[in-house]
């Protein structure tokens, strides 16, 4: 495929190995062991790696933050039915904590922005179902 619409398989393989080397030492281990169930999980995962790649923190700082978040959850005596285990919620908490620690982010800033996201109505026209094809290329018989 020469047009560049699709990624190169070798590049992806290399990128994957680099990421996996990074996360190998974390509780929960490689991402495949803590499967992604929701799109936000892969997004949070990727952001933590991207921020690290951008030099925002040492990987060990993130690692410690993740361990701490999990530890607090385990010791909190939570009701597992009300608050089921969500690995990537800890991941998100760890990321927020490390970024807040370096002064990049405040919880109130994030709370504000989150409220904005939740309040944004879905694009009115984009919500409508399109019941007919948007384009038809007829046969040549």
């Amino acid at each position, binding site marked *: *495929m020469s047009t560049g619409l699709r990624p190169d398989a070798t590049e992806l393989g290399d990128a994957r190995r680099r990421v996996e080397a990074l996360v190998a030492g974390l509780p929960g281990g490689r991402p*495949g062991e803590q499967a992604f*169930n*929701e799109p936000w999980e892969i*997004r949070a995962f990727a952001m933590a790696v991207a921020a690290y790649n951008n030099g925002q923190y040492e990987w060990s700082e993130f690692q410690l933050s993740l361990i701490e978040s999990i530890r607090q959850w385990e010791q909190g005596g939570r009701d597992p039915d009300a608050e089921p285990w969500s690995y990537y919620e800890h991941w998100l908490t760890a*990321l927020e904590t490390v970024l807040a620690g370096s002064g990049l982010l405040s919880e109130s800033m994030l709370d504000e922005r*989150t409220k904005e996201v939740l309040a944004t109505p879905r694009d009115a026209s984009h919500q409508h179902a399109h019941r007919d*094809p948007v384009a038809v290329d007829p046969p040549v018989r």
Partner: protein
Amino acid sequence: MSEHVRSQEEIAARVKALESILIDKGIMTTAAVDRLVEIYENEVGPQLGAKVVARAWKDPSFKERLIEDATKACAEFGISGLQGEDMVVVENTADVHNVIVCTLCSCYPWPVLGLPPNWYKEPAYRARIVKEPRRVLREDFGYDVPDSVEVRVWDSSSEMRYWVLPAPPEGTEGLSEDELASLVTRDSMIGVGPAASPVS
């Protein structure tokens, strides 16, 4: 960290908010995050599409139910809670080839197919597949749809997401559902390629 137990929607909004703040601050770009997501995109979500297709190939009455009401038929595979996002399956036949797109963003039936590939989200694909579908299929995906076959492009929205029921390849009549499922590729359910042929 609040004590309130958050819903998936609330967490997703928080992740989106965080990403927007970090991009505003120049800490990362959407493209950089997309590239990382791409590594694992095949592992997100139930991705039961191949199993659904295999069942449809083997069981004509299931296939009818799938075409009639895909959301309800997929519920037979345990997919629930689509939150008002209906799915519609369009069937490829000898006369019609279907391909899907979301012209406005990247709506995609992710509970069934997993995450959309990055190219699906790119403006290049979204515009060109509508304007010149045959050419894009041939030049970008190496998939030559015969001129005698009609090509239909379906535009997914947040309310209604399309995906393609590919035609069963030649020589698959005797295979089991598991064997059939292994032939169903994600690209064939988007409509940019055929299902794989069995290795004889």
